[in-house]
Structure formats: structure tokens, C-alpha cells
């Protein structure tokens, strides 16, 4: 009604951060940017909790006898690490923090389609997360994050019910985010922003949201059935009572394998943004990268059985799942080749986000290629449940998803806070993370290949050297994660003010001021060109 008036009256010094003060203005906000920051605060806490569990695990594995904690405590530690890092950190990380913040900006919208649902998702996430965290801290859970039956339902004496209930609740936050993103991408794009002009990060968010919507309800029901079995001792999955534990694994992995792509696809989207911006090159193979995101999301639903090659599923099923798993390598490789081709003859600037992005490409490639070892039936039988698997998925989850998340935080930090962090420190931190990560997890490939099983806290003496390397790497990695927390918080208060377009990037989110006003743009932008049009040098200018 008075929108035009509001726009004309907009004062450049008023932005979404200082438009309103007080706790209430944050807890009841419907602004996607503020909700993104609320999510950032929540998941940073849970990342610290999951990291603490990882630290205890690595310290315990320093000696073959496992001197730090007892067996059952060790089981509870790796369960806490898994549950917290997957459900409470990685799944919401890029979508709920970065996606929430930049997706409407990238498509020139004033907000997400359903701002109230967006705020509701943050509350639902926190309620579920507190439930799970309470279960993990007060008594703990010893089943591993997979909650495999019948152990989880008939034998375990730990807080399985409340932990699973927490994971169940957080799922609804994911679903709401997914619905919100897809509706927003379909209906709220600025004039001229056609599907083949969409930033690749938006395509990645679209693909991720498909998995949120199609996968998450299945894990909800699976956990619900598991909780019913545990609470009432009914043989839904217990073979002694007529159930089938393999069915639980099928239902569990039907979500939990695609969940891997929930974690990695957003990072891939981030990498496409960073690589183009810091090589000053248009993206190579735009439509292939966009389509490969969708392909990964869809093929990802057909490969869950590769987690169950030794579980007793039929040999024919294993054969087909093995074949289908190889198909995921195709769209993944398309992305890696296109990113490298984008770098070719670009003017590469090695700034902090770019260091993370280049690190991502290398680590993701190792993680992806070792995935092929595991989707090959014969080698998987040897490598199953060893540290090789642990190393493989950490190369994807930490080397891939987390590097992408940190790259994204560094890339959009000037936009989010309007402040600049210390570039030198940031580069050093990125290199520390890269070195620490490889030192932690590369030895685990070797350990696994030599036959060290996962989830054990004592091991033969001959594995000690590699375990010491791994623990040393983890300490370096820990420093690499602590540094950004410190200098980013410091920058919020003392950092120099950021220009509207700090990196000279071409995305719509850089066309508005830093930090953006509450309504994002003074005037709805009109898109007239292809994305990543870096052929002409972009002026770094301050948009008032």
C-alpha cells in the first residue's frame, strides 16, 4: 500500500541489523536475513558440541588401549559426534544459514515466500535439537547415529527414545525450509531472472530442497516406528518377534543416503559462486552444472542399498545398487571438471573464500573417488565398517561440505555483517584447516585398508603410529576452526566497514548495500544478462 513511499524514504544508514533493536525484535523476526543469523548462532553451538566429542574420540584413540574413556563412554561419544554433526550441524548448515540469507537476495526477492514458516522452522529445529542434545549429554546414547534395530529397540539401555525424538522433530524444520525454498525459487524471481540465468547456488538449493521434501518424511516415519518398537516392545523390526531389521535399514538409508547430498549439494553451489568470482571467468558449462545438481538429487534416491552390501540384502539387489551408485559419479565429475575448466585462463585471486573452494575441489575429488571403491561390491566387502569408510565420508562431509560452508561464510560475511575480517588470518586459517584435515583423515584410509574396524576404542599396537598422526591432525584442525570463530566475532565489532560489492562479484546480492536493508532492495532489480558475466571488469561501488 505504501511500498513506493517506503522505498523513496529509505535511508542508506538503516539496514536489517540496526532497523530494530532488542531480543524481541530477533526472536519474533520474519526477516530471512535475521533468521539466517539465528540459525548461524544455533548451529555454531552444536558444531562446538560435536567437535568436543570428536576431540575426546581422537584423544582416546591416541593409545592402543584407549586409556581416556571406558568402552560404553566411547560408544556414547561417537554417537554424540554423529548425531550432532549430521542432524544438528551439517544438514541445516548451508541451507538454513547461507541459503536463508542469500537466496532471496540472489533472486531479487524481498523475502522468502513464507517468512512465518521460516521462523517456525528455526523454533522447531531448536526444540528438536535441545531434545537430542539433552539425551546425548544426560546419560547419552550408545547406538551410533544410525539407530540400527534391534539393538536400539531391544538391548540398548541409553536415551534412544528422546534422542530419536529430537532427530524426528528437527526433520520438520528441514521440510519447512525445503517447501519454502522451492516455492520461493518458482514464484519470487525478479523480472528477467529466467531459469537459465539463475545462480548455480540457487540451483543447488533447489536440488537440496527436493531431497528435504522427498527424503525427510521417510526418516520421520522410520524413527517413529523404531520408537514404537522400543516403547511397546512390538516386533516391527525385531526378528525374534516376526519383524525384519533389514527393513529398518532400507527405510533408514532411503533418507540417510540422500541426506549426504543434502550436505554436499549446497557446498557445490557455493563453490560455483566462489570459483567464478575469484577467477574472474564465466562458469564453464552452466547448464551442465545446474542439471547435475538435479541429477545428483534424483539418482541419490536410487543408491541407498550400497550401505547394506553385507547386511543380508539379496545379491541381485546389491548388484543393481552397486551399478546405480557408479552413476552418481557422473554428475559429480561433471561439476569438478567444469570448475577446473572455469579456472583455466582465469585471473585467479587467492583470497580466503577461494582457498576454501580450491581445497574443496581437491578433497571432494579424493572423497568421491574413494566412494567408487566402496560402491564396488567386491572391495566393499573388505572395506565395509573399517576406517576406510570413515575417511571416505569425512572427505565428503568435512573436506567437502564443511569446507564449502566455511568458504560461504567467508564469501558472504561482508554482505551479512557489513564488516571485513582480517584477510591474512583468514587465509592462514584456511590453510591450517586444509593441512589439519588431511593429516587427520588420510591416515585413516590406510588404517581402514589395513583392516582397522570403525567404532572400536582399542586396537592392535601396529596401528598406533597412524592413529597418532590422525590425532595430531585433529588438533591442528581444531585450531583451524577456532581461528575463524575468533576473528569473525572480532570483525563484527572492530572490522572495517565493507563496500556493497566487496569482491566485485556480479550476483544480485552484491547490488544492494552491505548489510542490506530489511526489504533487501530499494527497487526490485531487473536482470538483463547471463549469470557470471565476468568478461567486463566490475567496478567495486557503493550502492546507496
Amino acid at each position, binding site marked *: *500500500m505504501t*511500498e513506493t513511499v517506503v522505498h523513496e524514504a529509505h535511508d542508506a544508514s538503516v539496514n536489517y541489523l540496526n532497523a530494530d533493536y532488542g531480543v524481541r525484535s530477533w526472536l519474533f523476526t520474519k526477516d530471512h536475513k535475521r533468521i539466517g543469523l539465528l540459525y548461524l548462532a544455533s548451529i555454531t553451538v552444536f558444531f562446538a558440541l560435536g567437535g568436543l566429542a570428536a576431540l575426546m574420540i581422537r584423544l582416546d584413540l591416541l593409545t592402543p588401549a584407549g586409556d581416556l574413556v571406558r568402552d560404553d563412554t566411547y560408544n556414547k561419544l561417537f554417537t554424540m559426534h554423529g548425531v550432532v554433526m549430521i542432524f544438528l550441524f551439517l544438514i541445516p548448515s548451508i541451507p538454513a544459514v547461507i541459503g536463508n540469507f542469500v537466496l532471496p537476495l540472489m533472486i531479487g*526477492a*524481498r*523475502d*522468502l*515466500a*513464507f*517468512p512465518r514458516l521460516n521462523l517456525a522452522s528455526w523454533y522447531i529445529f531448536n526444540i528438536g535439537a535441545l531434545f537430542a542434545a539433552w539425551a546425548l549429554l544426560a546419560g547419552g546414547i550408545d547406538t551410533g547415529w544410525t539407530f540400527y534395530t534391534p539393538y536400539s529397540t531391544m538391548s540398548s539401555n541409553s536415551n534412544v527414545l528422546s534422542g530419536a525424538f529430537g532427530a524426528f522433530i528437527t526433520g520438520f524444520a528441514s*521440510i519447512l525450509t*525445503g*517447501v*519454502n525454498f*522451492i*516455492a*520461493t525459487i*518458482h*514464484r*519470487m524471481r525478479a523480472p528477467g531472472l529466467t531459469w537459465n540465468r539463475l545462480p548455480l547456488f540457487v540451483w543447488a538449493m533447489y536440488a537440496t530442497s527436493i531431497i528435504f*521434501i*522427498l*527424503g*525427510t*518424511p*521417510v526418516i*520421520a*516415519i*522410520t524413527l*517413529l*516406528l523404531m520408537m*514404537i518398537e522400543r516403547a*511397546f*516392545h*512390538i*516386533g*516391527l523390526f525385531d526378528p525374534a*518377534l*516376526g*519383524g*525384519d531389521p533389514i*527393513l529398518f535399514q532400507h*527405510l533408514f538409508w*532411503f533418507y540417510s543416503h540422500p541426506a549426504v547430498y543434502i550436505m554436499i549439494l549446497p557446498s557445490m553451489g557455493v563453490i560455483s559462486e566462489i570459483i567464478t568470482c575469484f577467477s574472474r571467468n564465466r562458469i564453464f558449462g552452466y547448464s551442465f552444472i545446474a542439471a547435475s545438481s538435479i541429477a545428483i538429487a534424483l539418482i541419490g534416491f536410487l543408491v541407498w542399498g550400497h550401505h547394506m552390501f553385507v547386511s543380508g540384502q539379496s545379491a541381485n539387489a546389491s548388484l543393481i545398487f552397486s551399478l546405480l551408485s557408479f552413476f552418481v559419479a557422473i554428475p559429480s565429475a561433471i561439476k569438478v571438471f567444469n570448475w577446473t575448466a572455469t579456472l583455466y585462463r582465469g585471473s585467479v585471486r587467492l583470497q580466503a573464500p577461494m582457498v576454501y573452494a580450491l581445497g574443496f575441489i581437491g578433497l571432494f575429488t579424493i572423497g568421491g573417488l574413494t566412494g567408487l571403491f566402496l560402491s564396488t561390491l567386491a572391495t566393499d566387502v573388505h572395506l565395509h565398517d573399517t576406517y576406510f569408510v570413515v575417511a571416505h565420508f569425512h572427505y565428503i562431509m568435512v573436506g567437502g561440505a564443511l569446507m564449502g560452508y566455511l568458504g560461504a561464510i567467508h564469501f558472504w560475511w561482508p554482505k551479512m555483517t557489513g564488516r571485513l575480517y582480517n584477510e591474512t588470518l583468514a587465509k592462514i586459517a584456511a590453510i591450517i584447516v586444509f593441512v589439519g584435515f588431511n593429516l587427520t583423515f588420510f591416515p585413516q584410509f590406510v588404517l581402514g585398508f589395513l583392516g582397522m574396524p570403525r567404532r572400536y576404542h582399542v586396537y592392535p599396537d601396529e596401528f598406533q603410529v597412524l592413529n597418532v598422526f590422525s590425532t595430531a591432525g585433529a588438533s591442528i584442525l581444531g585450531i583451524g576452526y577456532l581461528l575463524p570463530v575468533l576473528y569473525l566475532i572480532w570483525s563484527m565489532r572492530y572490522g572495517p566497514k565493507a563496500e556493497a560489492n566487496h569482491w566485485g562479484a556480479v550476483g544480485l546480492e552484491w547490488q544492494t548495500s552491505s548489510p542490506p536493508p530489511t*526489504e533487501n532492495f530499494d527497487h*526490485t532489480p531487473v536482470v538483463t544478462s547471463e549469470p557470471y558475466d565476468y568478461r567486463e571488469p566490475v567496478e567495486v561501488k557503493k550502492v546507496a
Partner: protein
Amino acid sequence: MHDAASGVVPYHAHQFDDAEQQYQTSTLGMWLFLGQEVLFFGAVFATYFYYFFLYPDAFEAASNHLSLTLGAFNTVVLIGSSLTMVFAVHAAQHGTKRAQMAWLVATMILGIVFLCVKAYEYTHKFHEGLVPGELFTYHGPDAPQHQLFLCLYFAMTGLHALHMIIGIGILAALVLLANRDWFNAGYYSPVEMTGLYWHFVDLVWIFLFPLLYLIGRH
């Protein structure tokens, strides 16, 4: 708030350019939500089918624990409620407030009748010792499989009933809002979206009824 000259409708949310975009977006959002509902129920249907193919004879026999009469009655009630819901949406689209409220209330009443019959069925199972868990007293042939069937019966109809309860709550809110002249011929999407949800929940029952009540009758 209503400013006819500028074409702005009341309750126009700030993030949308116009009422048309707002309507299209909420419709898409609702369909996406129903898409996740399909998978939500799909997982428990998949569990049902898996065990049905594993134990077809026991499931057919266990199906006879359920009352065909009550199930059939409830099916008719629910289909009737879908019809009244259609009339409510139609009335909302034409801006006829009294008819809209009447049809919404009728839909609520039919939903409550369904839930009452369901509650009666549940109580009956309780008295017969057919509630899975500690209270299960059936000791005929294939007792564990019968218990599995009844467990799935309670899980599936329970989830369905939960959706009905939420639906009735939303209908009650719509009645209150309609009473305050919230809706008109230019703005009725909450009623229409609730209609979509209500029809979906009915549709789930259309699958539940044969799978739970009819498989044992030849």
C-alpha cells in the same frame, strides 16, 4: 486497509508483488507440502506392504479383527466431508459468508463423527486385548504376525487421525476468521488450501480402508 483504487487486497503479504503472485505461491507451497505428506505416509505404507507380502495369510486373517461395518461407515462419512469441504471452498470463492461458515461447520462435524467412531473402535480393540504390546492377549495361530498387523493398523490410522485432528483445528480457525469477514471473493486461499489438505487426508483413508479392512474378505 483495503484500498480498491491501488488494487491492494487486505492481508497482502509484503514479500509479494500482487495478490495473484501470493495466491500462486501459497498454492505451490501447499502442493509441495502434500508431496512430503505422500512420502510421510508412503514410508508406513511401504512397511505395511513389505510385511503383507511376507505374511499374506496372517494379515488377511488379522484383518478380520476389524469391523467392516464401522470402517465402511467411516469411509462414507469422510467422503461426505470432502463434499461439504468442496461446497465450503465454492462458497468462499463466491464470497457468501453464511454458506461458507455452514459448510465449514458441516465438514468439522463429519470429521468429529469419524474420530468418534475411530475412538470407539480403538476402545473396542482395547477390551478385546488386541492392542499391541503388554496388553496383547490374542494367542491364536500366527500371534506375532497378528500383533504386527494391529500395530501397523494403529500406527497408520493413528497418524491419519492426527491429521484429521489438525484439520479440524484449522477448520475451526477458518470459521472464526470467516465470521470476522476475513475472506471475500478476492481472497480465499486459506480456505482453498485447507480444502486441498482435507481432500488429501481423505485420500489417505481411501487407501487405508481396503488395505486394513478389506484384504481378509473374499
